[in-house]
C-alpha cells in the first residue's frame, strides 16, 4: 500500500498524487472557469484513468448539458447558479492563495468556540494541507487492511482496484439520474472508496477519517462503499466545524452497496459556509437481509438539496434514514429521504427533524414507493419541524406510492413553534433566554444526536449553541 493517507489528501500534494511529470507547469497555468470536453480530457489524463472512466466522464458531460435543472427544490436559488463561473477541478493550495488572515473572523471564532486545536483549524480552513495527527489514521488503516478491508481515496481506489470500481461505480446513480449527478460524474475528484470483504466486521467506525476528510470534501467528491456478504461497516464523513470554501458549488455523489446480510451505516455531519450550494445525490441498495442506515445532519450552506435513498432490493432488507436540518438566516435546507421497497418483507424508517430560525427555511421532501411484489412491507415516516421565530418557514412534502395492499404504514408529521410558555418555564429556573432555546433545540434533535459517537455529539450540541447565538457564518 502506498502512502495511504496522502492519497486522499487534496492540496499541495496534488501533483504527486495525480502523477504530474511537471507540476510547476501546472501551478503556473491560470485556472480556467467553465466546463468543456477538453477539461474533462485533461483531468482524466492527469489522473491516468482507464479509458472506460474517461469515456464515462465525457458521456456524463453531454448528459449534464442535456439535462434540465431539477423541477423541485428552490428554483429561484438554483436559477442563480452560473455554471460558467465555476472552477471544475481542484486547485493546488498555493493557487487558492489562502492564508490564516483570509479566513473570515466568524469562522475563526467558531473554531475557537468548538475547541478545535490550532493545527486543525488551519487545516480545516484550507490554510494548511497537512494535519499533524496523520499517523493516527495510518495505524487505523493498517489495522483494518489486515482484515482485507480496502479504504482509499476514490482516485486511488480506481487505480488500485479497477475491477471492483468498474463493477459498481455509477450503477446506483448513473449520470442520467439528475443534472448534478451528471456533473459530478463528469468532473468528480476525491471522496472515499471502501470495500469490506465477506463476513468482515469493521468494529471501529471509520471515524478517525472524519477530520482529515473535512478538507477533502471537495467540490465534486465521489464515494463508493461496498459491504460484501455479511460484512459490517460504519463510515463517518463531515465535520461540525464550518467548511470554508471559496467555491460556491458542491455536488457529491455517494453510492452504498450492501450485499446479502451486510450492514452499512453512513453518518454525515456537514456545516458548509453560507455561500455554498450543496446539491448531493446519495443512494444505497440493500440486498436480502441487509441493512443500510443514513444518519445525515445538515447545517449551513445557502441551499442544500439532499435526499438520501435506500433501495430495498431483497427480502427482509431494512433501510433507515435519520436526518436533521438546521436552516438559519439566508439558508434553505431542502432535505428528505427516499425509500423504494422492491421486495417482500422489507421495512423502512424515516425520521426527519428540521429547525428553522432567523428567516431560514427547511423543507422535508420524502418519497416512499412499494412495488407490486413487495408484500408485508412496513413503512414508518416521522417528520418534525421546529420553527423558532415567525420569520422562518418549514414545508413538508411527503409522497407515498403503494403498489401492494399488504403494507403497514405509519406516518406522523408535526410542526411546532417555540412557545412562550416553554421559554418562560426554563427561564423561571434561571436559564437565560438563549440557554433555554438551546436546551429546547438540543432536546428536539436528541434522537439524532444519540446516534453519533460521543465526541461528535458534544460538538454538534456546541455548534447548535453557536447557531442559536447567530454567531456562525
Amino acid at each position, binding site marked *: 500500500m502506498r502512502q495511504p493517507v496522502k492519497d486522499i489528501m487534496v492540496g499541495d500534494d496534488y501533483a504527486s498524487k495525480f502523477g504530474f511529470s511537471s507540476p510547476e507547469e501546472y501551478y503556473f497555468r491560470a485556472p480556467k472557469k467553465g466546463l468543456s470536453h477538453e477539461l474533462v480530457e485533461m483531468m482524466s489524463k492527469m489522473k491516468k484513468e482507464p479509458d472506460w472512466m474517461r469515456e464515462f466522464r465525457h458521456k456524463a458531460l453531454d448528459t449534464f448539458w442535456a439535462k434540465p435543472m431539477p423541477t423541485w427544490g428552490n428554483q429561484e436559488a438554483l436559477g442563480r447558479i452560473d455554471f460558467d463561473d465555476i472552477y471544475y477541478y481542484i486547485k493546488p493550495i498555493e493557487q487558492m492563495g489562502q492564508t490564516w488572515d483570509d479566513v473570515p473572523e466568524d469562522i475563526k471564532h467558531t473554531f475557537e468556540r468548538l475547541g478545535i486545536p490550532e493545527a486543525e483549524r488551519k487545516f480545516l480552513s484550507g490554510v494548511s494541507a497537512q494535519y499533524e495527527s496523520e499517523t493516527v489514521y495510518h495505524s487505523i488503516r493498517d489495522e483494518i487492511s489486515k482484515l482485507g478491508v480496502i479504504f482509499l481515496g476514490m482516485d486511488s481506489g480506481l487505480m488500485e482496484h479497477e475491477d471492483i470500481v468498474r463493477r459498481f461505480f455509477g450503477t446506483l446513480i448513473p449520470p442520467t439520474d439528475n443534472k448534478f449527478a451528471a456533473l459530478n460524474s463528469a468532473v468528480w475528484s476525491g471522496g472515499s472508496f471502501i470495500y469490506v470483504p465477506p463476513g468482515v466486521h469493521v468494529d471501529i467506525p471509520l471515524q478517525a477519517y472524519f477530520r482529515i476528510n473535512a478538507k477533502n470534501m471537495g467540490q465534486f467528491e465521489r464515494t463508493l462503499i461496498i459491504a460484501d456478504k455479511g460484512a459490517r461497516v460504519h463510515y463517518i464523513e463531515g465535520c461540525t466545524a464550518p467548511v470554508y470554501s471559496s467555491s460556491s458549488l458542491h455536488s457529491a455523489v455517494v453510492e452504498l452497496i450492501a450485499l446479502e446480510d451486510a450492514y452499512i451505516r453512513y453518518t454525515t455531519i456537514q456545516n458548509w459556509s453560507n455561500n455554498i450550494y450543496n446539491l448531493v445525490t446519495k443512494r444505497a441498495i440493500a440486498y436480502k437481509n441487509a441493512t443500510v442506515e443514513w444518519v445525515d445532519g445538515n447545517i449551513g450552506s445557502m441551499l442544500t438539496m439532499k435526499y438520501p435513498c435506500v433501495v430495498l432490493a431483497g427480502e427482509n432488507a431494512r433501510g433507515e434514514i435519520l436526518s436533521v436540518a438546521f436552516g438559519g438566516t439566508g439558508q434553505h435546507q431542502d432535505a428528505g429521504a427516499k425509500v423504494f421497497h422492491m421486495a417482500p418483507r422489507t421495512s423502512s424508517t424515516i425520521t426527519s427533524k428540521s429547525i428553522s430560525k432567523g428567516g431560514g427555511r427547511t423543507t422535508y421532501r420524502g418519497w416512499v414507493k412499494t412495488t407490486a411484489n413487495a408484500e408485508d412491507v412496513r413503512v414508518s415516516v416521522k417528520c418534525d419541524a421546529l420553527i423558532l421565530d415567525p420569520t422562518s418557514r418549514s414545508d413538508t412534502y411527503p409522497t407515498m406510492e403503494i403498489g401492494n395492499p399488504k403494507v403497514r404504514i405509519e406516518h406522523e408529521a408535526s410542526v411546532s413553534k417555540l412557545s412562550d*410558555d416553554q421559554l418562560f418555564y426554563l427561564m*423561571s*429556573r*434561571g*436559564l437565560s433566554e438563549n440557554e433555554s432555546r438551546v436546551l429546547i433545540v438540543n432536546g428536539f434533535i*436528541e434522537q439524532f444526536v444519540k446516534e453519533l459517537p460521543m465526541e461528535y455529539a458534544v460538538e454538534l450540541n456546541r455548534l447548535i449553541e453557536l447557531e442559536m447565538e447567530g454567531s456562525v457564518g
Partner: protein
Amino acid sequence: MENKNISPLLEVRDLHVEVEGKEVIKGIDLALYGGAKLALMGPNGSGKSSLSMALMGHPGYKVKSGSIILDGNDITGLSPDKRAKVGLFLAMQNPVSVPGVSVANFLRAIMKAKRGEEVPIREFREMLVKAMGLLEMERSFANRYVNDGFSGGEKKKLELLQMVLLNPKVAVVDEIDSGLDVDALKIVADGVNRITGENNAFLLITHYRRILDYIRPDGVVVLMEGRIVASGGPELINQIDRQGYDWLSAKTA
C-alpha cells in the same frame, strides 16, 4: 444582621397586573419574612395564579404599577431568569414538557445556571440522589424527558425536586395539591416542611384546605377578584372550609 432579620424576603407593594389589557391583580400588598409559610387562598379565577405568574415575570402578565422586592432587590422589571437568580422560585401548576431533555440533564443545567459554573458530576449525583430520596422518587425518573408524558403527580414531584435542589429564598408553590393522592400529598408536604428554614419563605397557593393539614401555614390571605379580601391566622382556613368564600364576596362589592 438585625436589619436583615426584620426586612421581608418578599415584599409586594400595591401591585397591579394586566393580562391582554384586562386588569387581573388590582392592588396587592404582601410581605413574607424568613421562615414564613403563607397560604394564599381564593376561589377559581380570583387571581391567585395570575399573581404567581406576575411574580415570576411571565411576559403575558404585565405589571402596570407597583413593585416586587425580593430580599431587598427590586425585581419588578427583571426577566424570569434574573428573578430566579436572585432567589425566587415558582412551582407551577401545570409545567410544560421539554421533549428530548432528560430530567438529569435539565437539573444539572439549572444548577449550573444558579451557581454560574458547572456542578461536578459526582457532587451533582449525590445531591440528586439525596433530593430524590427525600421525595421518594424512583432513580429511573432522572432518565425520563422533562414532564413528557408525566402524570399530574409526577409533574408536581419534579417541580418540588427542582425546588429542593435550587433552594430558593422564596418559593411560590401553585396548587401543589391538585392531582395528588393522599400518599403523594404527604410526601410532597413533608418535602416542603423539611426544606423550610429561617432563610426562606413559602407562598402556598391553593383553594382547598387539604394540603394545609400537612403543611401548616402560619398565615392566610384570601384573594377575590384580584384583591386581598381577608387575612389572618390559620383559623381562617377552618372558616373558609366551613363557609366557603361567599361570605367574603360582600367585601369586594
